[in-house]
């Protein structure tokens, strides 16, 4: 197991390096300029000077090497300096966003908490809704409950979040006045009323995303349960006179969870990636909103860094899912 993990980690390094190059070239070759947002009243000579000041006129490979150095040396050094007060990084230039001239990692640091709270809650809530629905749907296959569960899952799958989000805003904010439409990121939770406010402003984005997440996971749960329900060991358990409760929740559920846990683990990078549309719609200043804003403004350093971090997370969680699979299922051994 250990050698397997080590081998995978070592293999991941060249993979990630290659991914970073591909992302860089893709982002760079995409048409557009960081100056396109600037009003036409700014003359071309001034634009040219602005591009030079950003370093955006350097050849692509120079910028790539610089970015690699900044990402793997300057930024970690800065992090260490920040934690221990050392001075490893000196005054070397960090990765700066072209849009705000602020270090990209500062922006990411500001945004991760919102993304984790909102998207993370939605993910957990989605799992919490999906599990019982999946279990019961499988146990009572083709029952009314199962049909309803399928319907809800289909809706969750097929209705895009920009539609369900707008619908929720009109119902819950415009008509009922229950929840605010814009997420207040300056709100500090210090006491009960502010906690209630936080819950209120999280309600709509969390509902929208939880619906989408629950739809997918409940289907996995259901099919995995169904697969196990027909197995011999289930019949044996029943023959031994165990209650249905014990049969379903102890024997079947445990075995059915193995593939579901991997699916859930594989979905975790998407929590960090944020939800581009939902975050934008509700004004949650998460990673997804940062990415789309950076894409609109052709803010290459920001797009490049975010895309690469997602790549790292996906590689890491794939590995975690594989390891978890081996731990949960003793039949699976990596040699």
């Amino acid at each position: 197991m250990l050698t397997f993990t080590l081998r995978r980690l070592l293999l991941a390094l060249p993979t990630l390096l290659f991914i970073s190059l591909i992302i860089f070239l893709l982002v760079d070759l995409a048409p557009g300029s960081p100056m396109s947002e600037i009003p036409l009243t700014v003359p071309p000579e001034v634009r040219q000077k602005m591009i030079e000041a950003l370093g955006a006129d350097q050849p692509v490979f120079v910028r790539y090497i610089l970015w690699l150095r900044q990402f793997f040396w300057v930024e970690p050094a800065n992090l260490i300096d920040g934690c221990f007060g050392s001075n490893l990084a000196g005054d070397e230039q960090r990765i700066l966003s072209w849009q705000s001239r602020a270090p990209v990692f500062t922006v990411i640091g500001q945004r991760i908490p919102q993304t984790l709270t909102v998207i993370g809650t939605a993910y957990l809530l989605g799992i919490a809704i999906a599990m019982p629905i999946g279990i019961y749907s499988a146990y009572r296959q083709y029952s009314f409950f199962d049909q309803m569960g399928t319907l809800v899952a289909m809706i969750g799958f097929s209705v895009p979040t920009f539609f369900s989000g707008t619908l929720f805003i009109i119902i819950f904010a415009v008509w009922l006045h229950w929840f605010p439409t814009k997420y207040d990121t300056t709100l500090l939770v210090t006491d009960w009323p502010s906690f209630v406010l936080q819950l209120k402003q999280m309600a709509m984005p969390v509902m929208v995303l939880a619906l989408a997440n629950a739809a997918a996971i409940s289907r996995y749960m259901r099919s995995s349960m169904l697969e196990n329900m027909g197995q011999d060991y289930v019949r044996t358990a029943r023959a031994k006179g165990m209650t249905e409760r014990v049969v379903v929740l102890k024997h079947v559920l445990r075995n059915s969870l193995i593939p579901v846990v991997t699916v859930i683990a594989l979905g975790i990078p998407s929590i960090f990636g944020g939800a581009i549309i939902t975050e934008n719609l509700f004004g949650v200043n998460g990673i997804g909103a940062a990415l789309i804003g950076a894409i609109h403004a052709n803010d290459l350093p920001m797009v490049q860094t975010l895309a690469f971090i997602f790549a790292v997370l996906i590689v890491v969680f794939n590995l975690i899912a594989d390891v978890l699979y081996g731990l949960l299922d003793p039949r699976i051994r990596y040699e």
Partner: protein
Amino acid sequence: MNLKSALLGAVCAFAMAPAAFAERGTDGEVKLTFPQAVSIMNPYLSSGTKDIFAASMVVEPLAGYDDTGALIAKLVSEIPSVENGGISEDLTSITWKLLPGLLWGDGSPVTAEDVVFTGQYCMDPAGGCAQLSKFEGIKSIEAVDAATVKITFNAPKPNPFTAFVGSTSPVLQKAQFAACLGAAAPTCTDPNSMPLGTGPFKVTGFTVNDTVSMEANANYRDATKPAFASAVIKGGGDAEGSARAVMSTGEFDYAWNTQIAPDSQAAMAAEGKGVFVVAFGTLVERLEMNMTDPSADLPEGERATVKHPHPFLTDINVRKALSMAIDRQTLTEVGYGAGGAPTCNIVPAPALYASDNTGCLTQDIEGAKALLEAAGWVDTNGDGIREKDGKNLSILYQSTVNPIRQDFQALIKDWWAEIGVETELKAIDPSVFFGGDAGSPDTFQKFYADVEMYANNFDGTDPEAYLTQYKCDKAPSPENQWQGENMNRFCDPAYDAMVAELSGTRDEAKRAELAKKLNDMVTKDSGIVVPLVHRGTLSAHSNALGGVKINAWDSELWNVADWFRVK
């Protein structure tokens, strides 16, 4: 006086009281929302309107413009003029006198050194200053004494109100930005996001592309203002969401740039919680006609250059007919509602400079047909498209990806089809179209199409620089890496001569006359530019917010110090 009028008088007195005894910080928080979030609070490093407006609550220029476009003093005791000796007789220098006792947000005094430093900061060649053009032609900026700044120009400057005038060119604090000169400018993250200023508010918190939190500046020069104790600008989302947050849910007091579909505007306004306000500046949605041949058969380097004149758009009758066939009223109603007005001018405002050119406002399909007929453009082969000398009137019409622009394209295509002109439509991603990448064939400078549509405007109230854009030598071409603003490659020596005359004229009435003539030369006389809609900026404010005076000539938040809560 009877009892009734005495009581009425008393009631009136009470109603007036809040305004009369206004105090700083008594009205709680004012909440603003922008559909695009604020990225940076330093206007010298960004020319995004969102950033400039947000910064205008904090940092201020020496003088600004009021809602009529007139100059108003901000940090100075009076607007310099030749009469009061502030501008030298030969127009080569301007002297500003700072208000006495002016303080920065941190309590330190504002001095002439700060103004001099700000000039150095922007004019540093390595700094990438976005407002560099405001400092063009400046020979030196010097502090005569602690409260007097003298700006000297290389040559007589009829309009010296560029540097330090308007929200795009505020004064920065030397102490805060001293280490941020030149190449270091972009790396000064803290000063760039939390600049110290003299304005009514002070930044207390800044999250990039999300929220700016501010509190009333304790050192603001008017001790009774601002009425609000704090302010917050929340960014992100879209225009629809911003408008909704003010007009439907009432979460916010003010939303900038709420340009939404006309029917949504009407529905939200009907709810009665707030009002839409429009600032009509100089932004005009227009069609530009290509005077050169954009045919793909021509070799690269010669395509769309003056070497090859356009096969049919060089005929003034064709250009005029294309303009006559358009119903600008319908376009405005479909696209902008209250946020637009039909126009025939490229300089639609200020009133002093706007030509009385209204001939294009009524659609005239029959007239257009007759004009083409008379010019020899007839449909001989019955395919519905007019031709002459083997050249078909078929047009490639490009614009950016934008729902309103695609509506406009479809409508105009239909009208042109009626007069026998075939149109192919093309929509380009705005970041490519406006990106100015000389390697891309789809930029608006290269103009590899016959007609293109976009909006353009000019900064401030003086159209001189804007009208200069249509001079012969401003045409983009391979020789200048496709830089320049004369996309049409229009060239008329008479026009160039008149532009030269304009820049040498000081008398305002004479300047206005010349500007109007230049406007007419490129619009109604030649049809090189076909203006469509004069676009305003639609903003919304709730009925609970008082004191808003929409301004198209400076930051929309120019008088935020006077805003108050309606109780």
